[in-house]
């Protein structure tokens, strides 16, 4: 399908003020947009990155970028926004709550600095992506929430404090742990709720 010139072309202005024009055609389950290479503000196409100059494959949940010279297509997943909270209670200390944390489910992260001495740096991350199934023969999509603690310096790998998973269509994902058999136990709770 090729639409008429005024209706088919979707002009997109990049952050570097590049205007790109694509021509769309329909395939059975996907829309394909081919660049028309009309970059109004630049003459050097080699400086283009991201969507500019790429062929777009648009489906209901993904946007694929096909760029000349790249062997692997860039798969951009459609992101949904979640509203999260984290509640921490170190051993023998007060509860600390972080609320109203807005992150997206395609690898969105938020950094938390605890109110302790010394302060700890935590990272809350939400990722919806494909994973090998238990059998190893298939791929399944999962929504996973992580809470990492950064190392003492940049050379140390962040340690995983806790994780929780849900099916990709879930509107909520969270976890909660509590130490047992200790008078002042440590607790870690986090939950994310889809808001759009």
């Amino acid at each position, binding site marked *: 399908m090729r639409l008429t010139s005024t*209706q088919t072309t979707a002009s997109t202005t990049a952050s570097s003020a590049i205007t790109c024009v694509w021509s769309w055609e329909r395939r059975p389950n996907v829309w394909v947009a081919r660049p028309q290479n009309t970059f109004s503000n630049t003459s050097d196409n080699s400086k283009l990155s991201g969507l500019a100059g790429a062929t777009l494959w648009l489906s209901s949940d993904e946007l694929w970028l096909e760029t000349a010279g790249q062997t692997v297509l860039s798969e951009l997943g459609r992101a949904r926004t979640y509203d999260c909270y984290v509640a921490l209670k170190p051993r023998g200390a007060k509860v600390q709550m972080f609320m109203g944390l807005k992150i997206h489910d395609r690898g969105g992260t938020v950094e938390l600095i605890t109110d302790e001495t010394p302060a700890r740096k935590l990272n809350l991350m939400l990722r919806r992506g494909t994973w090998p199934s238990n059998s190893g023969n298939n791929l399944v999509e999962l929504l996973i929430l992580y809470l990492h603690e950064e190392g003492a310096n940049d050379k140390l790998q962040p340690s995983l404090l806790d994780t929780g998973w849900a099916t990709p269509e879930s509107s909520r994902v969270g976890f909660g742990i509590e130490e047992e058999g200790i008078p002042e136990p440590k607790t870690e709770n986090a939950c994310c709720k889809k808001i759009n």
Partner: protein
Amino acid sequence: MMHRGYFVFMFFSIISLNLTQIKAASKVTSPVILGVAESNLQLVKISTLLIGEYDNEPQRYYLTGMKRGPSAPPRLHVNISLLKEGSSNFALEEREGNEHIAPPALARLRSVQRRQLPRFS
């Protein structure tokens, strides 16, 4: 002999059926020229579908886990929004995608601690 005749009949029936299907398929895949009204309808579908936020972090994580990290495309976060209602112009915002919002989170923490907190024990 009856069996042989039956199989010969079935063989030609299957061949003719396949030829029919190929002929029908060629009709379906022939190019279709759409009118202006249908083109407008398709454009509305594209505009509705295109708007949103996209990120390739899950793909990068998957490729790294599969020992294909060097072939993974660079991290990219894209936000596509409509520039003007009813038009086919979109604003495109691209960035690296790692959002660390420590100062607002810390500010919220302090404001929350002034209030009565629920007990978690």
